[in-house]
């Protein structure tokens, strides 16, 4: 006779001995691998378009390096706070977790605000994506990256709000969820660490 527990899926919380991972962690790394291919394809396109162009503007001549650098600092900081919110949970400090995750979300929103401001100044001067391939790739890559930030904000807000109820019923699983959300968030930061120099500094 089997019980409901037998049809439960193993390794949702405890790592499997030979892979060293619990299921969701392998899942998120696989997802991140596919994201590397996605942004890799866009980087490939950037290189092809740039090397094939007779002229290509230096990023600093079109974009605001101080604003970009500020955004970079915001994202790196949010990566740290995301990480610390996870360690807070491992130290069983729920209040600290909420504070740090909340800061992470706020930093991300400010990032988006700066980005929106940057876009609007471009549009005011009629710098649309259709104007040049430089602007096309700039808007597309930062736009796709911004969509990923929005996705991260949604997930993190859920984890901060309704999702955090799981802390009471299954704290270990909830801690894992924050780890997973963190891995995604660090990846989004990583992409920006390449995007910023490529588009703003080169």
């Amino acid at each position, binding site marked *: *006779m*089997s*019980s*409901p527990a*037998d*049809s*439960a*899926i*193993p*390794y949702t919380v405890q790592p*499997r001995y030979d*892979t060293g*991972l619990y*299921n*969701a962690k*392998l*899942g998120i790394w*696989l*997802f991140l*691998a*596919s*994201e590397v*291919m*996605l*942004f*890799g*394809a*866009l980087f*490939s*396109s950037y290189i*092809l*378009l740039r090397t*094939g*162009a007779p002229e290509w503007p230096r990023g600093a001549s079109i974009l605001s390096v101080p604003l970009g650098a500020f955004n970079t600092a915001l994202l790196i900081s949010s990566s740290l706070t995301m990480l610390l919110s996870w360690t807070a949970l491992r130290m069983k400090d729920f209040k600290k977790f909420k504070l740090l995750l909340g800061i992470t979300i706020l930093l991300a929103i400010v990032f988006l605000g700066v980005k929106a401001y940057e876009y609007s100044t471009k549009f005011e001067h009629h710098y*649309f*994506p*259709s*104007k*040049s*391939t430089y602007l*096309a*790739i700039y*808007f*597309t890559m930062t736009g*796709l990256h911004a969509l990923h930030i929005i996705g991260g904000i949604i997930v993190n807000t859920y984890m901060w709000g309704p999702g955090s109820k799981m802390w009471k019923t299954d704290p270990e699983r909830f801690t894992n969820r924050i780890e997973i959300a963190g891995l995604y968030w660090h990846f989004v930061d990583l992409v920006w660490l390449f995007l910023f120099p490529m588009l703003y500094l080169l």
Partner: protein
Amino acid sequence: MSEHDHHEGHHVHPELPFWQKYIFSQDHKIIGIQYGITALFFLLFGFFLMLLMRWQLAFPGEPLPIIGKWFGENNMPGGIMLPEFYNQLGAMHGTIMVFLGVVPLAVGAFGNYVVPLQIGAPDMAFPKLNMASYWAYFAGGCVMLASFFVPGGAASSGWTSYPPLANIATQGQTWWLFGMVLLITSSLLGSINTITTIFQLRVPGLTFFRLPFFVWAQLVTAFLLLLAFPPLEAAGVMQLMDRLFNTSFFMPSGLVVSGQPLEISGGGSVLLWQHLFWFLAHPEVYVLILPAMGIVTEIITNNTRKPLNGYKMMIYSIIFLGFMSFIVWAHHMFLTGMGTAISAFFQATTMIISIPSIVILSYMFITLWGGSIRFNTPMLFALAFLPMFGIGGLTGLPLGISAADIHLHDTYYVIAHFHYIVAPGTIFALFAGIYYWFPKATGRHMNELLGKIHFWPSLICMNIIFMPMFIQGLAGVSRRLYDGGASYDFAHNVMPLNQLSTYGAWGLTVAQIPFIFNFFWSIFKGKKAASNNPWQATTLEWAAPNCPPHGNFEKPLKVYRGPYEYSVPGSKKDYSPQFEENS
């Protein structure tokens, strides 16, 4: 479609309402069947698109009796097909067969249904994600179908959607792009699930080198889907930007359309699209064949009652194949002006990649030697796969040689080559899989006589349709011509072959009727399976009861030996299942 009652008595779970149990199910078996039924529908739909095209090719400019008027004045005025409509049929036939038919059936249906059972797992690793990936596929399919009804009709720039043509095409192309985004999302979520499931949920004793070859095939396929699709997603986003926001990712400078220079910035590259598209589309064709190889291996081994020859080599080959498939793509681009050095690179990798395929195919043949062969319906389809895939694969070699490809590129030779692989190749393997696993899913067998009536005419007609196309291609007839080459003098001699292929297609249509009838009739009236393991097989799915309940197995399994221990000396039976301790 009706489902058997699940034996839920010994579970304490509350009974789920109908819509949660069968519509928005999280059970991998229900989801697998959802994928299967939906994919079979799309295969049929794509088949009908082909029949329409084949009418035009055999009788160019002739009105199609009765049915022709259904398509309206925009597509077939007076029942006579317009070239614009022909192009829609061509582009959508390819798209639907590949992305909505074969892959969802091979990966979504068979992968989801069989893999957890073959590794002893209660379900896939992420049941909710599984459900999401099915519905994303369904939504993508709806978008693709809807595109036929928008002004200008469906996408008509080939399944390959090359710019600049696809960039300036009618609205249907935008729908195609959105549909692809949904399908790629579905595929991504599915592949994450498959890989995690195979790595994490194998029962004790089931090491990687005791896995059925089918599971290895699904694992490599999932990696191909995971890592090859994103560049196409990126390209799709860029083409959407080009179409909707007038960017020039793929639009070179100086384009003139209908006498007017385009008001765009220019500076883009058409070859950029081709590189990104084929980066996906080449691994995609291995996605089309690998699950089929997995299915055929299971069925051949089972019906020869002896171990699989070269099990380890086949695994190494399939891993090597998977990796190589990522670095051959530009053999689709030999005629784009690539220089000799880079062409030689891609030619070399293309030649090399044929080796693992040949190794795998050879071991399937060798396994037959000395076997005690049972010629049931699944085995017939699996056996037919071998020479058919052989023809398809071997005819790829001249295409992979850049010098020969100058003559053969974009001719009917290419069409014949890939259809031999997918149609009497993969689709036959999928038929074999349906006949083989039907008793596990329903507790009943499909009718053997109807199966044979399905098999023989299908095999013959497939060859009647596609063999002449090699001849046409060698004669220089281009693909995607709406009159089948009738307006070219040099092709005059091979034009009658168009009619031959069309008659073959009509025969193939009739041959599917016994299958469709058999499939649905046998669910209710098929011969009851004698046991949980009616084929006397060795792999884990046969330990589960027929119509497995939620959670699959009555008690946790343990694996004691490899997957193909047939006719072990000293054993009482001619098969020693992996899950039986003393056998």
